[in-house]
C-alpha cells in the first residue's frame, strides 16, 4: 500500500511516496539512491546500516519507513558540512587508520556520532559499548576506538 511521507533528511525536507512495508534502509538506498548507508545483513545484527533518527542511532534495515513521519534523519551523506568539510569524527577515522575496506565505516561513524552527541567525553568502555552493534572484520576495532577517543578529546 502506498503512503505519503514527510520527513527531514540531512537537513532538507523530503516529501515522498513509499510502500508501507519498506524499511528506512530500502527507502534510502533503493528509492532515494543514498547508497552511503550499507546493508550488511538486513536483520539488524551487524550495524552497517546505522543512521540517526531524532538523535538516536538505529538499524535502518529494521526501522519501518512509515515511522519517519515528521522525524529527522541523519545519514552518512549528511555528516560532512555543506562545503564538504569532514566532521571531526570522520577526520579522526581518516587520520587514525580506522578505515580499511570501509564497508562498516558509515554505520560505525553514525553510531559514534550518536554516542558523542549524547556523551561528549566517553570512556573507552563506553565507546566499546556504543559501537558493539557495529561489526568490523578488518580492523579489530582498535584504531576505530582510538579515532573516536581522539574525536571526543578534540571537542
Amino acid at each position, binding site marked *: 500500500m502506498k503512503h505519503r511521507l514527510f520527513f527531514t533528511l540531512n537537513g532538507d525536507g523530503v516529501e515522498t511516496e513509499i510502500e508501507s512495508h519498506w524499511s528506512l534502509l530500502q527507502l534510502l*538506498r533503493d528509492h532515494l539512491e*543514498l*547508497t*552511503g*548507508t*550499507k*546493508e*550488511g*545483513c*538486513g*536483520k539488524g*545484527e*551487524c550495524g*552497517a546500516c546505522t543512521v540517526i533518527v531524532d538523535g538516536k542511532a538505529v538499524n535502518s534495515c529494521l526501522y519501518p519507513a512509515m515511522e519517519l513521519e515528521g522525524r529527522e534523519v541523519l*545519514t*552518512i*551523506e549528511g*555528516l*560532512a558540512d555543506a562545503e564538504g568539510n*569532514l566532521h571531526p569524527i*570522520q577526520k579522526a*577515522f*581518516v*587520520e*587514525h*587508520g580506522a*578505515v*580499511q*575496506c*570501509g*564497508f*562498516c*565505516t*558509515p554505520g560505525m*561513524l553514525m553510531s559514534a556520532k550518536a554516542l558523542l552527541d549524547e556523551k561528549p567525553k566517553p570512556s573507552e568502555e563506553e*565507546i*566499546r*559499548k556504543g*559501537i*558493539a*552493534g*557495529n*561489526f*568490523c*572484520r*578488518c*580492523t*579489530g*576495532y*582498535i*584504531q*576505530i*576506538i582510538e579515532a573516536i577517543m581522539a574525536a571526543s578529546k578534540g571537542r
Partner: protein
Amino acid sequence: MEEFTSVGKRVAKGDARDKVTGRAVYMDDLKVPGMLYGKILFSKFPHAKILNIDTSKAEKLVGVRAVLTGRDIPPIRFGFLKDNVPLKWGKVRSYRDEVAAVAAIDPDIAEEALNLIGVEYEALPAVFDPEEAMEEGAPLIHEVDPRGNPMESNVLPLPWKLVAGDVDKARRESTHIAEDRLKTTWVTHICMGTMGIIAEFDLRNNLTIYANTQIPYLAQRDYNDALAAMGLKGGKTRVIQPTIGGGFGSKLDTYGQDYIAILLAHRTRKPVKIQFTREEEFFATSPRQPTVINIAQGCTKDGKLTFRDVSMILDNGAYASWGATTPSVMMMPISSLYKVPNIRYITRCVYTNNTWSQAMRGYGNPQATFGIESNLDHLAEEAGIDPSEVRLINSNTPGEVTPQRFKITSCGLKECIEKVAESLDWESKHGRRDGRGVGMASLIHVGGGARVYKSDGCGTIIKVDDFGTVDVFTGATDIGQGSDTVIAQVVAEELGVGVEDVNVVDHDTEICPWDVGVHASRTTFVACNSAIGAAKRVKEQILELAAGYVDIEKDKDGTKQEIKLDEDPANLLIRDRMVYSKRDPETKIPLGKILRGSHYRTGGKMVMAEYFYDPDNENLDREFKGNLSMTYAYGTHGVEVEVDKETGKVKILKYVAAHDVGKAINPMLLEGQIYGAVSMGVGYGLTEQLIFDKGECMNPNFRDYKVLTAKDVIPVEPIIVETIDRDGPFGAKGIGEPGCVPSAPAIANAIYDAIGVRINSLPITPEKILKVLREKEGKKGE
C-alpha cells in the same frame, strides 16, 4: 639511516575520505541501466539425484525474463580441478549446489520465481565426515573425474607429500617425542560487503563484468574460457572492480554465480546482477576447511628439534576450489618454522557432501601452525625445557636453507621471540597453573610473493601529467588493506613528489596492466617493487628532459634571470616537486614547468613508463621443494589469559604481536593489518565456527556465528621488528596474512599454562574448557 619523505610515514589511506563520506561505491551499490536481478535456487538436499525440474510456472510470472537450469547451459567447467559446473544436472552434492536460476526485473520477483520452480529429487546416501568418506563403501561424491575416468574413492587426486631427511631414523634417535591429534573446524571470511557480480554483453559479444574479485586478470581468463564454451569465440572480457568490502581469500576463484550471471545476461541480452544476501554469503561461499592433524615432533636432550612428522585429513567438501591446494602452504611452516632437519608431511583432501572450501587469510598456515605450535609446547614439557627457550634454540636464522629449500634471507624470528617473552614477563609468569597463563607461538609465511602460478608478476604503468601529478596504473587490487596507499608512498619517495601528488588507479582490466591477484601477502612486496621499477624509469625520463633545461624567471623588479640546470642527468635530483642541481641546490626548476616544456615544443615528449616485476622465486618442484618466496615473514605472538574455572570463559589480559616486517612502509596501515588479523585469529581460536549438521549450515547469520565485536576487543600490542630485506621495496615484506597465523596456538598454549589441560580442537569454547576441567577434577577424585 636513510631519510625518507614518504616511506615510513603514517600516511592516511588514499580512499579513506570517500569511505567516511559514503561516496565509495561497492558492488551492492552498483546499478547498470536496464539491469535485471538474478537469483539462484540452491539444493534442498546434500546429496541427491535430480529427477526433474519444472520451470514452467516461474517462466510465466510477470517480470521474469529468464529461467535457467543445468539442461539449458553449455558445458562450462570451473574450479581448481574443473569438477564444478554453474548449474547442476543429474545430481547435487551439497546444499549449496546451484539447481536453477532466474533473472527478473526486480529482486522480489526473482525470489518469488524461485518459489515457483519445482524440483524432484531422489535422496542419495551422503557423507559429511572426511574420515568416514575415506572408508570403503562410503558413498561416492564424484563418480567420475572431470576427464570422465571413474573415481575409486572420495580422496582428491592430489599428491600432497613432502619428505626431507629420514624421519623414522630421527624418531628412533630422539630423546623426547610428543604426539598429538588436533582438529580445526570450518570458519568463514565474513566480508562485510557480500559477493556480487554484474555481467553485461555488448552486441559483439564482448563481456563486461563488475565484480568484487581478488583476481581480476585470472578471472578474465576464466570468463573468456566460458565465452568460448558458450560458442562466443572472439568475445573478450573486461573486469571492473568497484570498491571491495573485504576479501580475505574468499574472492580468489570464479564461482557458480559468476557464470550464472553471464549465462543469464547472454540469454536476456541485458545486464544481470547477482548479489548475495548475508545468509547466502554464509552458506554459499567457500570457507576455510576443517583439518584432522596428526603430528609428532622430537628433540634431543638439549631441546634441538630432530624431526616433524605430520599427516592431515582435510574436509574438502563437495567441489575443489583453492582450498584443495592449501596443503602447498601448510608445508611451509611444517618444513621451515624453526630448524627441523627431518620432515614428513602427507595430506589427503577428501570430498564430502559439505560446502566446499577455499583459501582464507593464511592459506592453510593457521591450521598447520595450530598443530605445530601446540605440539611444540607439549614437546617442551616432555623435555623439561621452557617453551620460549625451545623456540629460541631452534629459531631460524638468516642464510639458512630449509628442508623445503627455502632460502632464508632476512629473519627476525629470534628477536620476535625475545621481545614477546620480555613483554609478557615470561620468566615470572610461565608455569604457575593458577588460572592465569601465558603462551606463545611463532609463524613463518611467504613475505616476498609466492610463485603459486607460473608467474608471480605485477605490472605498473606510470604517466606524469602537465603539472607534475603522477598517475600510477597498477595491476594490484586494494581490498581494503591499503595497497593503493603504500604504492603511492613508494612512488612518491622514488620520484621526489608528495604522496598527495600520486593517484593510484587499480580497478579495470581494460586500463591497468596485468597481475596474478591479491593473495599470499604479496601485494606490498610485488606491486611496490613493480611500481618502484616504473618510477625509476619515469624519473630517468624526467631527468633527461631536465638536463640543461633553461628557465627564465622574472625578479620582483622585473629583470629577467636565467636558471639553467646541470647538463648531466646524474647531477640532478627531484625533491618536493622541484628539480635541483645536486651541486647547487639553489638552482631549481619546478617539475611541472619541465613537463609542460616537454609537451609544448616541437618534437615534444610524453613522460610515461611501464615495468613488469616478477620476483625471482621458484615454483615448488615435483617433491614440493623450491624457494617459493623471495623472502619470508616471521613473527611471534604472546598471550596472557585468565580462565574462569566456573564458567570456562577465557579472558585475554595481554596480547603481544611481534612481526618481522622487513620495513614498515606505513606503520599505521601495518598496525591495522596486525590488529585486524589478530582479531580474526583470536576468533579462530576461541569463538568462530560454521556449524554444519548433515551438510546444512545451521548458523548462517551474525547472531549465531560469533565474530568478535568491539566489546571483545583484544588489547593487541604490536611490536615491529625491521630487518630491511634486501629484495623488499625499501626493505619491506608482506604482512597481510601473518597476523592471524599464530593466534590460536598461542592462546591454546596460554590456556594450558593456566589450567594444565590441553584442548586440541578449535574453537576453544567455554564448554570444552569446562568439560576438560571436570574430567581433570574427576580424575583427581578417583
